[in-house]
């Protein structure tokens, strides 16, 4: 990828991130932090790619790659469960109590 193209992507993504949550009510700060924590769990994809291209004959590479995928999967799975549990509890009186 061209460095300058990447720079534009960085810039636009940064503005997007800033705008997307700029009007979030305080009650959602914790779930949103947790939700964004889940979103960067996509690092799992990167970890899979590097492990997939690691040299199968080199145990060091395999070990590092294994750790990367393990941690990435934990980030994604844990982030999802925790966020979903928090958000499942938001309900209004009209919105039907459980």
């Amino acid at each position, binding site marked *: 990828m061209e460095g300058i193209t990447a720079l534009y992507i960085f810039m636009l993504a940064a503005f997007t991130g800033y705008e997307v949550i700029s009007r979030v009510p305080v009650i959602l*700060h*914790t779930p949103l932090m947790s939700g964004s924590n889940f979103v960067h769990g996509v690092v799992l994809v990167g970890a899979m790619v590097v492990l997939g291209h690691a040299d199968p004959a080199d145990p060091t590479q395999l070990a590092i790659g*294994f750790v990367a995928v*393990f*941690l990435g999967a934990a*980030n994604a799975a844990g*982030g999802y*469960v925790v966020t979903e549990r928090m958000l499942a509890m938001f309900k209004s009186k009209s919105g039907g109590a459980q």
Partner: protein
Amino acid sequence: MNGVIQLAYFGVAVVFILGLKAMSSPVTARKGIVWAGYAMIAATLITFYTPGMQNYGLMITAIVLGGGVAWWSGRVVKMTDMPQMVAIYNGMGGGAAAAIAALEFARGGAHGVTATTLAVLGALIGSVAFSGSCIAFAKLQGIMTKAWRLPQQNLVNIVLAAVAVLLGLAIIVTETPPSAIVIAFFVVALALGVILTSPIGGADMPVVISLLNAFTGLAVGFEGYVLGNPALIVAGIVVGASGTLLTQLMAKAMNRPIKNVIFTPITGAAAGGGEAIEGSMKELSALDAASVMRYASKVVIVPGYGMAVAGAQHKVWEMAQLLEEGGVEVLFAIHPVAGRMPGHMNVLLAEAGVPYDKIFDMEEINSDFPQVDVALVIGANDVVNPVARTDKSSPIYGMPILNVDMAQNVIVVKRGQGAGYSGIENALFFRDNCRMLYGSAQQIIGEVITHVKALEV
């Protein structure tokens, strides 16, 4: 196939952004995380079709183990322990980003100065997020109880950061760096995370977790560039930016600039100062509390972390419903940093069944307090301390507070006499309109409920 994969990643990035957008409104929040969840599954599955990959057995084992452990721990954890779980999962993401960089160095995968520089930056930030989050987890979990500071802490931080940068430069310059340099780089980066986070005390923890969350986002974005994966770049940078904004919002709510959180933590010694407070604390009984609230027309409940620790939120909501049946208007007022993270208290109340339209932010409710008959403070302290408004010499001066002292009557539920988390005396307790209701929240609110029921007859 590559085109299909790239297109899928593009779709995933779009859904992540839409999901985050949906998560910023209570009505759509649940949908938002579910969408993002499907996108994550799609991204993971399509990645298996990446051309030229090997080691599938190891990969699937790692996914099952890592995902399984995290899924299980996330399911069983108590709601009050959520903050440290967010911290640890975030740290794992940072660790994954750092490990990606490490593997790229090991196999010489990062080519060109730009890619290597970003790989190094991502590795540094990711390592700090990893070790810092582990410390944050240990502190919130109660494994690590003391906040320790090194002598010349700030100097140590700067030196360590400088060494990490120099080692990073060495990696960038040498292209194929000797493994000793790479290992030294990671050791220093991890140590930096530990030493940065260790002195930071409980009250500042949410800001730190949020900051580390933003860090991980950036690290993921940078490694995304190294791997030429736009989905990682977009998701990472979006989280980096939104996490930074969220950190600022939290720091602002606590009147603690981010640089103060990191460089001058509130410690016991720093919490001295402040003027002496005149007057005395006045006690009242559960029966009196019950009748004052039962015959009030408007009661505002101010819950703090103390209520959550006591697990009293269900009892409190039971009492609130009882009062409402008697025609009393009952609302909940929440300080932005009540609980351990902004919004954490809302989650705990929601768990107890309190509808979110009964819960009000500080800005929404602060001007109403003069019209409130009874403000019931449960397990909150510093966030209702009027010295933050009045006493310039106090360490918490300038912090926005809930103006409960302006209510007609204030009842404070507290386990015993003594200062709050920050060690600062609370002038509210000595006011003429304030009465202390001593006891553990769970048990004392139970007594109040009994008395309120007795009044109905």
